[in-house]
């Protein structure tokens, strides 16, 4: 019962771990370059949750000083993750741009086809 309680009360961590591992799995297991980027996005998103969920304190209010409240949630993780989201978007954009160029140069975005047909040096 104790164990079950520990597992259930940390449900946010389970969600994070699930997203993290499935994202990484897609990156490793898929040969399609766009799908790989989707996996990469999922992997990065899980980290956003890793930062955000400990920042929220149950019963805490936004950090605006007021005599009525004593418990505040931490705003810093949100600021950090806002930056990380921008970085993630930039990475995704650059990755997709590269995939477009690869498609133009090789006529495919499947790794098997590209590496299979590539002349070896």
């Amino acid at each position: 019962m104790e164990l079950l309680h520990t597992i259930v009360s940390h449900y946010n961590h389970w969600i994070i771990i699930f997203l993290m591992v499935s994202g990484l799995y897609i990156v490793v297991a898929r040969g399609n370059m766009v799908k790989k980027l989707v996996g990469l996005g999922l992997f990065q998103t899980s980290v956003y949750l890793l930062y955000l969920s400990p920042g929220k304190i149950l019963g805490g209010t936004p950090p605006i000083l007021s005599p009525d409240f004593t418990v505040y949630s931490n705003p810093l993780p949100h600021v950090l993750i806002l930056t990380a989201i921008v970085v993630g978007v930039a990475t995704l954009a650059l990755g997709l741009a590269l995939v477009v160029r690869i498609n133009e140069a090789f006529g495919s975005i499947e790794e098997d086809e590209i590496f299979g047909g590539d002349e070896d040096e």
Partner: protein
Amino acid sequence: MISEHLPALQVVVPLLGAVVCAFFTRGDRAWFVALVVSLAMPFIAFGLLLKVLHGGPISYALGGWAPPFGIEYRVDILNAYVLVLVSVIGAVIMPYAKRSVEHEIEADKQAWFYTIYLLCLCGLLGIAITGDAFNAFVFMEVSSLATYALIAMGRDRRALLAAYQYLIMGTIGATFYVIGVGLLYSMTGTLNLADMANRIAGIENSRAVLAALAFLTVGISLKLALFPLHVWLPNAYAYAPSMATVFLSATATKVAVYLLLRYFFTVFGVTVIYADLPISEIFLLLSLAAMFGASIVAVFQQNVKRMLAYSSVAQIGYITLGIAIANKTGLTGGIVHLFNHALMKAALFMAIGAIFYRIGSVKIDDLAGIGKRMPMTAGAFVVAGLSLIGVPGTVGFISKWYLGLGAFQQGWWWLVMLIVLSSVISIIYVGRVVEVIWFRDVAPASRRAKDPPLSMLLPMLLLTAATIYFGFDTVLTAGIAELAAEWLLAGVR
């Protein structure tokens, strides 16, 4: 006074320079801006180094917000050394860049190339100078995204694949780094590295902190191309434009090594790293695997740029070997090799870039007899190659001397033998190229080749001369590396 703001200028100047570059459409004007910015960087870096040597670490509160709440730029002996390394290489290659970029990049993209180059420089300097864990991540991504774009500008279509592959692996590495920082943040409640070091004391063996250490180590090791996380590197260096290869091989992995040292020694501390965890053993094994595995692969490469890239993986093995040896002399060897390897690898890639500029190929068979047509370039290649092997009188020898001495002090005489043995393999791959470029008949394709213009030749010869000079006068390199090693091992916290 302006000298108080040197830490901020070190990062802000290249950032603004990049913005200015982006406004130009003509490559040569953008080049001029990048040249001015790059030439200013070493002055700032040397200014910071002198200040640190005389007055101790500098703390700069960015935007006037006092640390640990604001972002702190913290310059101490180790990162002042890294700043000097990055900015000097950045400055030396700019004169070289003009001809090389004109030759390899389409005219309408040259201004963008310099923009991205300055962003990359800004990111690398930022990682080195910041004292804030998350700020380091942002700079890491600035430099990484710029790097992916630089690589993708290579002429060969395989450059796109190399850039894509590096983007995937680099992003995984950076995300691992953020996971590590996130775990540390949730345990300590701070992002300032010095503050974090204080608060970690007492909880360093908790599971979350150890998990953070594992994530940070793997994430940064991906960036520094520690064997077996190096797979992105050979293709990226082989197909990137020559100028990008010179810059990246000399600086990008070095800055990642610096970040690893920063976390290992100043945040987690010597006891956690060496006494409680088998990090020394792990790094010893991986370094040896890099030194031998990558060197052997290098012997069989037909593309000389790719061969040098594999040799970079092997040389990174020597640098991390310094971490594994874990005494002052060994660590000095690792840190001094950061600088020494940057000098010789930049010189080698410049020589190959110059050959590519003249004959349009870097395949070993096409290089036959090129020494008779481009004697200065081929001569620079030989001297820098000797340094790569570690011949006495070159910088390569200094690094290996310190590493060997450190291993000996540790009682690991077998490691001394292995260092010598791995050097023998580098004799094979360097010797193979030297034999082809000097002792074969001139290949038809290179019959009309001659030494490159002075703007390319001078930086190359300057770096080659430096590999000899710092092989004799080690006050600036090994002297500072020794101070840094002493400071790291003393447990600054």
